């Protein structure tokens, strides 16, 4: 796919003291402040009901903040949206699955912002759609009516739509729930490519273990922003227990039966594909030291390039 972003300056998404109170009087979010700049994958992490989806809706302008404001490149979000810069993959697609549209029709909807008022697809739109469908591995199913897909495939359709839109900012609300490991890995690979193209990706997830593997930044929320910044700084035992309270299960090696004869090696089994492991003092441990080093190097290189531009 053509990288339309790389030669432009990365965008900045800023939330300033955003508060959201729903009509029923429930304040789902108060005083949320953070800033993100293109070329990053940022995880949005918090317990159920902590306001992740609410934050996405506030960023998208679907709910009007009762206080504070959201800007993209120092302008109101609406201006960026009109330019097709912001792609959004909702959590539970409140979608009518019986609607007579095919996979490619839905993906094409990502391109409407670039078309004339008749929304007639141009060759470039068709190419973008084909490429996006291919990238999520749905090429064989592109003519299917959307109701005739499995849950994970449905999810991928909406990821493909965000890809086809080629947004410079991509918001994904729990894209990994209900998808298998293979699909999750495919989506993660895609997100990494998008990051390399200079896009800004904000993704909410409950999959704590995989966060350090592909997210360079984290926003930790529980009805407000508890912490935000580089993953290693935010993902500490202290912050996580503030965010999750008793909701996380700990396994403290020093008080366990693990002894010196076990060496540095224990086997951790979890129902989640990737366990989150914190070292002494609550710092992050990575599963694969070499891969992590490579990631750090890449990020450094990206920063240098960004500065050169």
């Amino acid at each position: 796919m053509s990288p339309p972003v790389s030669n432009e300056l990365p965008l900045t998404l800023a939330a300033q003291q955003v508060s959201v109170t729903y009509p029923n009087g429930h304040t789902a979010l108060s005083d949320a402040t953070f800033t993100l700049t293109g070329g990053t994958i940022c995880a949005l992490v918090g317990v159920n009901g902590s306001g992740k989806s609410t934050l996405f809706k506030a960023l998208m302008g679907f709910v009007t903040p009762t206080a504070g404001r959201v800007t993209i490149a120092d302008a109101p979000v609406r201006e960026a949206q009109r330019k097709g810069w912001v792609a959004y993959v909702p959590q539970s697609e409140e979608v009518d699955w019986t609607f007579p549209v095919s996979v490619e029709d839905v993906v094409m909807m990502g391109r409407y912002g670039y078309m004339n008022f008749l929304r007639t697809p141009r060759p470039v739109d068709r190419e973008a759609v084909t490429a996006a469908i291919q990238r999520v591995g749905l090429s064989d199913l592109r003519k299917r009516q959307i109701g005739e897909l499995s849950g994970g495939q449905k999810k991928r359709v909406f990821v493909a739509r965000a890809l086809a839109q080629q947004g410079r900012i991509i918001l994904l609300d729990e894209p990994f729930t209900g998808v298998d490991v293979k699909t999750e890995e495919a989506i993660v690979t895609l997100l990494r490519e998008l990051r390399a193209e200079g896009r800004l990706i904000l993704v909410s997830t409950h999959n704590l273990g995989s966060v350090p593997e592909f997210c360079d930044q984290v926003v930790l929320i529980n009805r407000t922003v508890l912490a935000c910044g580089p993953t290693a700084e935010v993902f500490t035992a202290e912050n996580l227990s503030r965010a999750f309270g008793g909701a996380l299960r700990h396994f403290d090696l020093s008080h366990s039966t693990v002894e010196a004869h076990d060496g540095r090696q224990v086997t951790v089994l979890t129902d989640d594909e990737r366990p989150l492991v914190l070292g002494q003092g609550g710092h992050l441990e990575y599963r694969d030291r070499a891969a992590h080093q490579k990631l750090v190097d890449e990020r450094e290189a990206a920063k240098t390039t960004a500065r050169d531009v």
Partner: protein
Amino acid sequence: MLQAFAVGALVAAVCAVLSCFLVLRGWSLMGDAVSHAVLPGIVVAYAVGLPLPVGAFASGLLCATATGWIKRHTRVKEDTVMGVVFTGLFALGLVLYTKTPSELHLDHILFGNLLGIEPAQLRQTAVLSLIVLAVVIALRRTFMLATFDPSQARALGFSIRKLDTALLVLLALAIVAALQAVGIILVIAMLVTPGATAFLLVRSFDRMLVVATAIAVGSTLSGIYVSYFANASSAACIVLVQATVFVAALCFAPGKGLLRSVPPTTNFTEN
């Protein structure tokens, strides 16, 4: 007779195209509401000497906006609000009608008068229908997006409020156009049945528009034909034919593959 065919077909096409949106959006009752609500507008317009379609359009739109406003400011569900608003306006229209001495034929308003339509009205209906048809077809993809996924529409910077209003205005105009032909009671059938039938038969939106239009125009032409010889109400005959087609689609469409368009490339292997 030929004129009746032409106007009938045109009105049927307009209503059919709109019906696709109404059915998919769950707005079927909205068509009913707006069409009933035009009655007081017609009577008032007659009394003060305005063109009747202007009054009809105004009160139809009043119903839609009042419904929207009340829904936003209370916890009552939209269909409930609509039920209260449109029956209220319809009743008001009936009272005004009996209190206003006029040469309006209530049964022509209620049930249409396709075969006795006058040339001036004919032109009016034709022009209005053509305008609405052109606009809806031009904007069909935008309306489809707003119907299918409002949050994506907003993410691209479209205003759902404006699009909804535009669709309501087009709906009200279509109803005004169809009034002459089928009357306010049966226009709802024209605004629901073709879309509902097509929905059973197709799997792509553009095809749904085409199939709905074809069904509506076909039913209208045969309905008028039957009514002429059976000496029955043409609107009723049209609606009857449409309903029959719907039942046929219901019986034969799903799974049977009689009319269902399964592309030959579709297979059941997944990657």
